[in-house]
């Protein structure tokens, strides 16, 4: 029941917002509906904790701990973004950058986007999962092109073209998986592509086809997750999309794309043994971290900086899944959790600064944000520390877990590369954001009154980050452990 409601609620919201013409009512509907989604997601997490897995419509929809984790994080990110969006777009609206028509576009497309992301995690059928991931791309393209400037059109075009190539590779991979299992599950019924069905058939699948399939899937969904070298759309899209959409892309789409890869990773390790797919995940993960590092050091634009940070975090998670053992997947999922909780804060801070100064280039802002926007500046610095893995933030724990798993599983080589990247990125990030926040402001810049609507979601995230750093409530910890067992339990 919760499964169905979770999918119906965003669709209903999109339909209602499509009919409204008043800005205020669209704001209200979106915030209320995001809150309802969050409540439903929490209910789903509770049900999954109690029954291990839930399903609906004869197994058409299916949720285990892994899906519940992804759905919960998506709902949380969408919720904070919905609150932040209200005041963000009010500012744009007052400056007459956007019209009510544009705003309506945002308020109709965002729920469809969220719907697609929920469907990714809840669909049992891997074909439907593909349809949903492609749907999420389609729903977000026009959000990236939202401001309709030359740069945003360029970003949107790159996003959809690179995304379409990636997604068609993923379809090829899905098809090959279907073929690899077709002699067991048959090609007649829809259940042939159901993940639960494929999981039981995995040991007998055609290994040659499945190996090729996993490579295609990793390339395809990896494009969507922004794994290097398929990451090139990320900095453009993250810097051009309106801030709430960019935050959803960074903190929710990333998880859903990784979720897609994980489902196939589980099948592949069950059929081919753990070495093949985890090896690929590990090397692509390390590659992403290595590629992100120099771009973070030499970055000139803070929105693009966040995109490279997201590529780095994708890498960290992949390394966790790749090193395996019982600790690796747990660490990676823990990292996914902390990343999704904290990352929106950085986007919101960056959005505040960008809206106030009218630019996202470090050099043009100068410095001294702390004198002009004290709350934003303090949160920006705190968020930076949290996201680069400074204790007491949770990401320190998760990175340490991944690190110790990699020492156990793959020896010092991988671990030292990992530490090198994490430390360099910490230094680069702190240098950039420190310069931006501290120091003296440029003459002629005025102090900004920070509205409460805007600070509310930011303070909420900051409080949660701090809280979860010290104490992770046991149901959540249990959920992440369960999900880790689903990914790593095949060994």
């Amino acid at each position, binding site marked *: 029941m919760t499964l169905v409601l979770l999918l119906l609620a965003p669709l209903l919201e999109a339909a209602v917002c499509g009919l409204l013409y008043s800005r205020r009512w669209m704001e209200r509907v979106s915030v209320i509906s995001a809150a309802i989604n969050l409540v439903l997601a929490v209910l789903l997490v509770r049900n999954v904790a109690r029954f291990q897995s839930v399903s609906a419509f004869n197994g058409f929809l299916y949720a285990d701990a892994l899906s519940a984790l992804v759905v919960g994080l998506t709902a949380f990110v969408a919720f904070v973004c919905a609150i932040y969006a209200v005041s963000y777009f009010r500012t744009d609206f007052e400056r007459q950058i956007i019209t009510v028509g544009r705003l309506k576009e945002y308020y109709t497309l965002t729920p469809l986007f969220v719907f697609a992301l929920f469907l990714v995690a809840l669909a049992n059928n891997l*074909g439907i999962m593909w349809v949903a991931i492609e*749907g999420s791309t*389609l729903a977000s393209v026009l959000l990236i092109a939202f401001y309709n400037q030359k740069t945003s059109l*360029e970003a949107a*075009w790159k996003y959809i073209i690179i995304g379409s190539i990636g997604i068609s590779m993923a*379809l090829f991979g899905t098809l090959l998986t279907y073929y690899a299992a*077709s002699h067991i599950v048959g*090609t007649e019924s*829809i259940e042939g592509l159901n993940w639960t069905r494929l999981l039981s058939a995995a040991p007998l699948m055609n290994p040659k*086809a499945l190996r090729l399939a996993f490579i295609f899937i990793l390339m395809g969904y990896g494009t969507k997750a922004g794994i290097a070298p398929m990451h090139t759309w990320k900095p453009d899209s993250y810097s051009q999309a309106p801030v709430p959409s960019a935050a959803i892309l960074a903190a929710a789409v990333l998880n859903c794309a990784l979720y897609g890869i994980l489902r196939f990773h589980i099948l592949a390790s069950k059929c081919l043994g753990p070495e093949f797919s985890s090896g690929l995940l590990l090397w692509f993960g390390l590659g992403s971290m290595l590629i992100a590092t120099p771009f973070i050091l030499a970055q000139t634009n803070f929105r693009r900086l966040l995109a490279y940070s997201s590529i780095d975090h994708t890498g960290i998670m992949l390394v966790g899944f790749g090193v395996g053992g019982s600790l690796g997947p747990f660490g990676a999922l823990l990292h996914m959790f902390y990343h999704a909780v904290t990352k929106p804060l950085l986007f919101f801070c960056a959005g505040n600064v960008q809206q106030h100064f009218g630019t996202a280039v470090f050099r043009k802002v100068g410095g001294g944000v702390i004198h002009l926007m004290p709350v934003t500046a303090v949160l920006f610095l705190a968020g930076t520390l949290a996201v680069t893995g400074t204790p007491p933030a949770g990401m320190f724990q998760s990175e340490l877990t991944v690190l110790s798993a990699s020492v156990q599983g793959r020896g010092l080589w991988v671990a030292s590369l990992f530490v090198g990247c994490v430390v360099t990125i910490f230094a680069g990030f702190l240098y950039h954001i420190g310069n931006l926040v501290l120091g003296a402001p440029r003459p002629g810049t005025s102090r900004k009154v920070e509205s409460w609507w805007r600070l509310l979601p930011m303070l909420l995230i900051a409080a949660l980050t701090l809280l979860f750093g010290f104490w992770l409530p046991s149901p959540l910890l249990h959920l992440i452990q369960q999900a880790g067992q689903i990914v790593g339990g095949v060994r």
Partner: protein
Amino acid sequence: MSYDSIELGHRLITLMAAAMLVVQMLLAGQRLLPTVIALFSLQSFFLACLAAAVAYVNHAHHVYIAAGLTLLLKVIVMPMLLQRLIRQTGTRVQVESYLNTPASILICGGLTLVGYMVAHPFSQPQEHGHGSLAVATALFLIGFFLMINQRKAISQVVALLTAENGLFLAAIALTYGMPLIVEVGIFFDVLVGVMILGILSYRIAETFESMDTSKLRRLRG
């Protein structure tokens, strides 16, 4: 069903797959935008025929529906949308590519060989599928190559759609298509995708006063 009609069906499948590959090669050398779109429509028509033949030979009835959807959407609706887009934006009908025609066609030939090599391990001599799978892989690869090679937004979209045709062919060759509901979902996505690509190329044409995507080069680093 008599042995003869099955034999005929298999030959028809091979013929249609070959025709699709020929059309793909023609696309690499074509210089006029409306003709490019017409060629895509023709290729999709061959695909629909092939799907119908597979459905007939193997008694796989749900493939008929996929064939019908291909006929409706890829042969009629999408080409119409794209032709209308050309008229609305008033772009020049000349296709511009980075490489010249002989070089492009040579590369397409090479990619076809790669397609046959990739498909080889999956070929089972008693089945009809292996030829189609090789062609499908070749279509897929050539589609991507054409996408990189084209400068105009619309011709990139057409190239993407031909790669999609290749995928569909692979699906039919390997497993008689996907389960129906997945198939319908994919068609829905492709249709919406074409519409959104249309909207975007329209906006690009208006803002940049050209559909040449090599002008999109502001975002760096």
